[in-house]
């Protein structure tokens, strides 16, 4: 059953140095507050997994939490580059960052296969692409029935998955609504999971086929209103598009970034 903890306790208990961590949310419901708590607790040598790294991983990479990144599109959507990610990859700042690069389709299938308890995912992928040349995880198999050559990749099974969701009920069941992305798959594929929610309610108000995670697949739940900002939570607050634009300038320079981090993350304790 899911444990109700503060964000601080949840991150401290369930995320350890050296873990593979998937903090998913496809533009929507990005667990940014949890990312900030990881930074505050100075976790190190993490392998970060995320289809679209977004600002939250740019900040964690810039803060030195990560030794490796597994991703499929590393930009600031509609704005430009993620400058901390580029600084790490191009200039090894603040530390060398190993990268493992896939396509979106491959990572989506890899999470799905992870949730399905399989060791591999099979897709019609990477035809004619150079990615297999730089990513040893990408293999090809032959269909035993048609002989078709299909891509095979290892399933994603992180040590811990962190997602944000609209709400949880008092038994620890979690409702995810709107762009549900890869949230369910990340939690089911992981050994441990933390879910930050906007609120804890008596009744989820879920429709008959809604995306609901039963409490017995979640390790910890933390009530963190606004836990996705500057990303958004459908039904609660909008995406702070202006901040996504402002981030370009903040992250571009190491010192401005470090100053922003100190003021907005390090010195701002999470609700303990």
């Amino acid at each position, binding site marked *: 059953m899911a444990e109700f903890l503060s964000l601080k306790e949840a991150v401290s208990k369930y995320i350890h140095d050296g873990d593979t961590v998937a903090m998913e949310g496809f533009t929507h419901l990005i667990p940014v507050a949890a990312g900030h708590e990881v930074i505050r607790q100075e976790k190190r040598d993490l392998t970060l997994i995320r*289809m679209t790294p977004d600002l939250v991983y740019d900040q964690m990479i810039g803060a030195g939490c990560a030794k490796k990144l597994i991703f499929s599109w590393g930009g600031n959507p509609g704005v430009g580059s993620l400058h901390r990610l580029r600084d790490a990859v*191009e200039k090894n700042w603040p530390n060398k960052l190993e990268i493992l690069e896939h*396509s979106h389709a491959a990572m989506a299938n890899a999470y799905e296969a992870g949730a399905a308890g399989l060791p591999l995912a099979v897709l*019609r992928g990477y*035809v*004619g692409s150079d990615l297999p040349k730089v990513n040893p995880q990408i293999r090809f198999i032959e269909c035993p029935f048609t002989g078709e050559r299909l891509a095979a990749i290892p399933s994603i099974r992180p040590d811990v998955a962190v997602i944000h969701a609209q709400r949880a009920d008092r038994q620890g069941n979690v409702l995810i609504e709107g762009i549900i992305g890869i949230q369910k798959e990340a939690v089911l594929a992981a050994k441990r999971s933390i879910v930050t929610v906007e609120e804890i309610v008596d009744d989820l108000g879920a429709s008959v086929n809604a*995306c609901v995670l039963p409490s017995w697949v979640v390790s910890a739940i933390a009530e963190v209103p606004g836990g996705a900002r500057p990303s958004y939570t459908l039904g609660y607050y909008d995406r702070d598009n202006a901040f996504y634009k402002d981030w370009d300038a903040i992250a571009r320079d190491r010192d401005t970034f470090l100053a922003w981090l100190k003021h907005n993350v390090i010195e701002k304790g999470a609700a303990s």
Partner: protein
Amino acid sequence: MEFTSSEMMSITAARALSNDLICFVGIGLPSEAANLARLTHAPDITLIYESGTLQTRPDVLPLSIGDGELCQSALTTVSVPEMFRYWLQGGHISVGFLGTAQIDRFANLNTTLIGDYREPKIRLPGGGGAPEIATSAQEVFITVKHSRRTFVKDVDFVTTVGFGRDGKARDNVPNIGRGPTLVITDLCILKPDPDTRELVVTSLHPNVTREDVIEATGWDIRFADELEITPAPTHEELAVLRSLKERTHAHHSGQQ
């Protein structure tokens, strides 16, 4: 009517779309063109964004493929694994729209890096949905600014296949789409030669000369025998595009 080269691109791309198409739309110019088409000659066109939003009708252009408005105006929103497995790989997408940082003569695209993979000069965002959109969509439209920076003799990295470095990458590969059938730049329209698959300029935009295109291309570009002139944007096209972009700008900067 005055118009910018970027407006010319969006309008030309929008014209290539029609009501019966199911369109997989990427961010930026592809989204602009697809929504412009929907607001002008193709009101019934079906737009799908990677985030899972099926048949969506946003009032403003999304800043990202996962904007809230895409979800609220969609017929329904499915998970990301389902989007890629059922809707893209299942073969339902008629047109996949892609942008790129570099393109070569066989429409191969590089959105991964400039320089060498181990120590890239410039690390780009990566492939995202493109590698599989390029092969699972029935056909692909590419929109890209035309310059020697983008139209390169050899891409530094084939993130997303056009027809392969030799033009033959799609030959006898089963169950994949036709690949790029249309490249739209701010200078012209290009289409792959039916036999060699090499991109050929088929139409010059108004006030654009052959020399402009030659100047802006990193390989010796070929021109179709009967070279056309792309019709200039109409009043309506420009008005709808500009109001769409104004609404979008107001919406995105208005929010705090």
